[in-house]
């Protein structure tokens, strides 16, 4: 056996480090988008949206926790330490998910773009060779189909509503698009994982598949897909000031007593 777990050579230091980094970045995305969605609890335009965003938030936070669990095993840290015990510069999330919610239009556009990207990313892990992760990714991917259909339904509603709602969604699209493409900025060591078979499909290949699925819906609802290129930085810890504010608030309870048992 000697460190070869379920088809992946975790005895190799470079594979282990790359996997931990990849899972942390993935979990950071899930944690922060979940936190942002949860900010709608009590404030969404109607009660169904309120429940939906709260429910999607709960999904994302739960998925973040499972990913931090796997990463924490490799890094000898607890999920809570990873989620709440790090400085903003140590986060590896894409900038997209740290942005404030803005209006409902931006929230829906971001949710739509994020969850389509998540489907592609989960598929890459589900068809990979690390069995426990592949199984988890397949389960998460199935569950998140509800997010995808929710995002698409609302996008269609807003884009096909009034001129005002259409324009606001288009504006949100222009703003979110480059940072959404930043979700596919490679994490340090991602190439090693590709070669080891833990993820299938290069980052650029994944981005291409995502762009196609976004285009399919956008064309149908008359939204222009922006031409701007990807805006990265998050995967190397270069974040916006929005992250500092978010992390300060999100971690305040944990920091007040890190050893507390709940």
């Amino acid at each position, binding site marked *: 056996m000697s460190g070869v777990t379920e088809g992946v050579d975790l005895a190799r230091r470079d594979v282990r480090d790359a996997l931990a980094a990849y899972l942390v970045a993935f979990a950071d995305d899930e944690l922060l988008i979940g936190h942002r969605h949860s900010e709608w609890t009590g404030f969404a335009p109607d009660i*169904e949206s309120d429940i939906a965003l709260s429910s999607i938030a709960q999904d994302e936070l739960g998925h973040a926790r499972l990913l931090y669990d796997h990463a924490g095993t490799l890094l000898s840290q607890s999920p809570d330490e990873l989620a709440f015990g790090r400085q903003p510069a140590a986060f590896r999330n894409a900038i997209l998910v740290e942005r404030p919610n803005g209006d409902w239009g931006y929230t829906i556009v971001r949710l739509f773009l994020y969850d389509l990207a998540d489907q592609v990313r989960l598929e890459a892990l589900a068809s990979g060779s690390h069995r426990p992760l592949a199984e988890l990714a397949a389960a998460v991917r199935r569950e998140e189909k*509800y997010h995808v259909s929710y995002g698409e339904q609302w996008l269609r509603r807003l884009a096909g509503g009034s001129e005002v709602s259409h324009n606001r969604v288009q504006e949100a699209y222009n703003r979110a698009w480059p940072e959404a493409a930043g979700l596919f900025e490679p994490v340090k060591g991602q190439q090693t994982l590709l070669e080891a078979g833990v993820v299938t499909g290069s980052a650029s290949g994944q981005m291409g598949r995502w762009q196609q699925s976004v285009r399919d819906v956008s064309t149908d609802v008359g939204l222009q897909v922006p031409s701007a290129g990807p805006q990265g930085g998050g995967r190397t810890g270069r974040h916006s000031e929005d992250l500092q504010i978010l992390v300060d608030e999100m971690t305040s309870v944990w920091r007040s007593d890190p050893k507390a048992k709940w």
Partner: protein
Amino acid sequence: MATSQTLNDQIWMALGTVQDPELPVTVTDLGLIHAVTVDGGRVHVTMIPTFSACPAIDVMRQDIRKTLLNVPGVQTVEVELSFAEPWTMARMTERGRQRLLDHGLSVPFRHAQTPVTCPFCGSTNTVLESPFGTTLCRSIYYCRDCRNPIERFKPPPE
């Protein structure tokens, strides 16, 4: 081995007393327990959650540990999550389904796709209001006949 067979039975009986904290149904009737292995006093339970992000999982894992540690002969208990196969309605027992119906939920059949039935008036003239409900495993429908909102038990998509 007669003794470990008995212990195994006792463990399954004990598992049958552990409730889901969000629903009036036991973990065995919900079909969450995939396998139990007993090695001397060491018990290993594999659990298949309905939704991987369900916040009740931790509570149930703790309750399973606590309950099984009270079974004479059990020394250690490990409860592991498994995603190797998806949780589907077929895993729920008929008694579990009946409990959820008694609780006032609309519940899909275990082996067939059928229209959503209103738990109040029995009508199938119902419409989906929102795929998201008060817990991850519930959606909200509306009955067009008796005009009540309906909570529907929602399995993960296949």
